[in-house]
């Protein structure tokens, strides 16, 4: 029997390790259009910022594929899928047959149809190659300043990388504040202040309506109100969508795989096609907090989903209950963490907000409660032990017995009631 995995990132590695935990006999083949040993896309920012070297990019040790007996086809694009014949078509002809298939194609950056977006010097910022290309451009050209379009998480990473290269940045964000999806208003404004003090110019409530070039290369951008912003480099950091190129168009008709915004999977990570699994940024996840299905493109979820898929592919049943967004991102040198439902827009009156804002230390913590259960948390600056909040959100713990301690400086496991501590650590933790 042959397991075939299309993709070579978090979900793929999770799947490989899970399969090999239970199945050391059957073959695994990995097909990836990128030529690299498995690497971490979140590290692309550090690579561009020269905070890590290319040698440090590998997500797993060099002997990973050998040790796990994985056949790799790197730098090979999968172009089509035939679920009847159970084959994956490859670019340049040729195909690979599978008994079990995992689609782990990840996400692809969203590029708006802005005029000038195809000029030299305009880049997306997702892959190793992107980092290499931008780096080469910086080294070859004179880059006096850059523009980052999109004030979300990817935008923050782009700013971090460019700032590390001493390139001044202008950030342009369509919403009325940056990080409008992950943060609440206060955290956004706090972040804007931090970035501005670090030298980044920020324009909110607008976007680039045209990118203008000179000699085929980026020269400046024009915002919606007509202002002209000079820039030698543009990074489009608007967002990432599930990469469904393999099965589009008409995926259900052609392959039987049902798709919404991402590939629809059940709790075993199975798609609607027999023996075809999907995991990672290309799927729709059950959002535990919203109670709805949507793509949640987060590294830990991809790893876990890959793990669950791999387990099931090796005939050992495991389920994935779903997840919620969680992000850790550096804003102008200040660590921030956001978890769950941080700024509920629908029925805001049902939610209770607890905040602690220290204007001198510039730290901020915000907790969102729904019927006495934590559903969201934001930490700016003071991120120590934020994971405890993540645990409380996941476990849907009733916080009433210790609500007044949640934002205290000494909040910890000790603030939780004895029975919950015991429950949380049953078998390996604190003995009560």
């Amino acid at each position: 029997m042959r397991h075939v995995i299309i993709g070579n990132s978090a979900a793929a590695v999770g799947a490989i390790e899970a399969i090999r935990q239970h199945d050391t006999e059957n073959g695994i083949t990995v097909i990836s259009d990128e030529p690299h040993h498995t690497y971490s896309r979140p590290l692309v920012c550090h690579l561009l910022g020269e905070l890590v070297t290319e040698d440090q990019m590998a997500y797993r040790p060099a002997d990973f594929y050998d040790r796990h007996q994985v056949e790799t086809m790197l730098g090979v694009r999968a172009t089509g899928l035939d679920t009847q014949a159970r084959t994956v078509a490859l670019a340049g002809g040729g195909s690979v047959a599978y008994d079990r298939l995992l689609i782990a194609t990840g996400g692809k950056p969203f590029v708006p149809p802005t005029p000038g977006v195809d000029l030299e010097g305009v880049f997306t910022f997702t892959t190793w190659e992107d980092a290499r290309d931008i780096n080469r451009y910086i080294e070859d050209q004179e880059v006096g300043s850059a523009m980052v379009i999109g004030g979300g998480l990817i935008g923050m990473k782009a700013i971090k990388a460019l700032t590390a290269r001493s390139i001044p940045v202008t950030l342009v964000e369509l919403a009325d504040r940056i990080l409008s999806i992950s943060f609440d208003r206060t955290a956004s404004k706090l972040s804007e202040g931090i970035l501005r003090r670090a030298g980044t110019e920020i324009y909110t409530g607008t976007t680039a309506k045209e990118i203008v070039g000179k000699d085929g290369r980026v020269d400046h951008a024009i915002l919606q109100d007509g202002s002209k912003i000079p820039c030698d480099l543009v990074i489009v950091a608007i967002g990432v969508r599930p990469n469904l190129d393999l099965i589009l168009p008409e995926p259900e008709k052609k392959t039987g795989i049902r798709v919404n915004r991402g590939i629809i999977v059940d709790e075993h990570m199975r798609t609607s096609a027999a023996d075809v699994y999907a995991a990672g940024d290309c799927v729709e996840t059950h959002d535990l907090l919203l109670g709805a299905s949507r793509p949640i493109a987060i590294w830990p979820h991809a790893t876990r989903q890959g793990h669950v898929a791999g387990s099931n592919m090796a005939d050992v049943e495991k389920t994935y209950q779903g997840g919620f967004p969680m992000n850790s991102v550096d804003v102008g040198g200040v660590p921030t963490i956001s978890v769950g439902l941080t700024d509920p827009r629908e029925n805001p009156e049902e939610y209770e907000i607890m905040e602690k804002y220290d204007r001198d230390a510039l730290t901020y913590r915000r907790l969102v409660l729904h019927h006495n259960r934590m559903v969201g948390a934001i930490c700016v600056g003071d991120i120590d032990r934020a994971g405890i909040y993540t645990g409380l959100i996941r476990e849907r713990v009733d916080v009433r017995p210790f609500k007044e301690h949640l934002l205290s400086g000494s909040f910890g496991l000790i603030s939780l009631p004895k029975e919950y501590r015991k429950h949380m650590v049953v078998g390996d933790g604190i003995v009560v």
Partner: protein
Amino acid sequence: MKRIYVNEEYCIGCRLCEVHCLVQHSQSKKIIKAYKEEAPALMPRLVFEEDGPLSFAMPCRHCVDAPCLDACITGAMHRDHESEAVLCDEDKCVGCWMCVMACPYGAIQRSVIGHKAASKCDLCYGEEIPACVAHCPNEALTFEDRTPASEEAS
């Protein structure tokens, strides 16, 4: 596998566990030298909590199903094959703090040196018994294998 268990009934809040953890992870491994010469670039890997007479020190649980392993973007957080402990390769770590966000015990801290890497218990890798357990004056910390026999078989 053996893990460190904390008995909050017997923790006397002396924090000697922190002292010895710090020394064990210092360069010299000598208590006076570590404190007088190497500090403040040293930190203990246990997280100590106190509320009135109740106190305990919480080291990493080396979870069987560790959320930090899922969260780590560089692969610095890894499981050691021999001991099954969850270890952090501090050279590979870039300080993204995804693990801090993921750990429900809050057992991972930002290292004091430049806040660059994640710092956590490594079960005193290579030693027979972790330093905190060996030096707890009231046997509040124990080093035991509590895997039920049925799990061990599989």
